[in-house]
């Protein structure tokens, strides 16, 4: 598989900043959804208490 590690290979080192950025983008999006759910819980608790 080593022949794929060339300049254009998907595991090449120069691609990793993009990949890590991708992971962080995804994480940020998911934490956004989590925050929405938390706000819903706060509102629900205010209404029913």
């Amino acid at each position, binding site marked *: 598989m080593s022949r794929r590690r060339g300049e254009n290979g*998907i595991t090449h080192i120069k691609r990793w900043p993009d990949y890590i950025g991708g*992971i962080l983008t995804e994480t940020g999006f998911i934490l956004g959804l989590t925050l929405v*759910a938390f706000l819903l*819980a706060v509102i629900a608790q205010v209404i029913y208490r």
Partner: protein
Amino acid sequence: MIVRPRKEDHLVIGKYTGKVITGVGLLMVVPMITSIVLGEWDTVVDFVISIAACLIFGFGTQLLCRTEKDLSWSHGLVVASGSWGMATVLGALPHWLSGHEGTYLDAMFDVMSGYTTTGLYLLQDLDHVSYGLNMWRHLLTYAGGQGIVVIALTFLFKGTAGAYKVYVGEGKDERLLPNVVQTARAIWLVSLAWLGVGTLALFITGMALGQEPVRAFLHGLWVFMGAWSTGGFAPQSYNTMWYHSLTYEVISVVIFIAGSFNFALHWAVWTGKRKEILRNVETVSFSITLTLTVLIATFGLAKAGVYPDAMTLFRKAFYQLASGHTTTGFSTIYSRAFVTQWGPVGVMATTIAMAIGASACSTAGGIKGIRMGVIFKAFMQDIRKAISPESAVVRAKYHHVHDVYLEDGLVRSAMTITIAYLVLYALTAIVGTLYGYDFLQAAFEGVSAASNTGLSCGVTSPGMPAVMKVLYIVAMWLGRLEFMSVFALAGYAVSIVRGK
């Protein structure tokens, strides 16, 4: 007219099924090594037996089925579903030999549940199983999430055109890169990069929570595998309630939601198209339906006063709903608590979330976001047509990496599969009800199996009628492979008997 398959057809199917099963045998080397390192000798013997059985089948069929013929589309479907069936029969050996399964059927149930990333299990006394067997449980769910065919593609197949047909048969139809083997490698890259990051995060958190390093690492790895594959297996019977930690919960939520994303979405976001995550039809659809079902559950639970404050309400409602919607099946409440604590509103909201499921071409199950999006857009298009002048041309499109215009064929196939899922959900619910379970609980559990979620409200148990175990196995299999492959296998069996 049904055409009876010819000898060449059997040979080509046998040959490629043999290859996939060889792959399953090689996969078992990992848990065997785990057991050797930790000195679990009886478990090592179990794995030697199981590996040998897989290799005997794999090498045997390859020796018997010699052909140069490449796979056709129908072969691809039969190989995919046939391999899953055979991989379940042989993959169940370590479970059965461990002595923790009541029957061989139970062992096959657990393995099918693993491959299909469901997470329901019938294994008894989980808290006393070996690390080796736990490694196998989680590895097979991780492998199943990748697609056992994808694994075989990466390591065992030459890059034939036919390979792509098996890959599609396994329910993945995206080409991230022009070539199917490259696509398989890109999928691996995404999964392994997340494996590294996710396991590390859980490992460090586990240590901070008071776990010994070895246990923290293994738990981190296994919880990652259960989360990423949207599988839902966990090393302890308490599932993720074991950790009693907000941090652990948030990390696992991030992993299982990320795991439920389409690999094409990952690839787009990872190669510079960051905005894709906000525009993609599947993330939009998922965000809307997740928020709606969380809303129903949160307000239902708040009204019933189940939880004392907003924080506890959020932690419980969001975790179970996100877990259900991504078809993961992790849970921080007891199974029976869905019924005895959450009540009908919570059960219903979770059932809807599980039924919808997450993204196509991911590790998740259910009807899936893209179909929800397509059907919704088609519905809106019809309304717009109805209220527009007759001469007007109403076109609709959705965004999935590129803009795609809605065509009747596309809508039709989305509807067909959606209806197939709904029928399967109904069937499992009805059969459960006929066996005397409460309808809502039977529906919850049936949807959980058919959508490959794995949350349980207590219907699934070793004492469950064998017919229901078989039904759930078939439902998991159908749901994961999205029907067509399994029907192709059934058609193949019929054509052997009745074809001309």
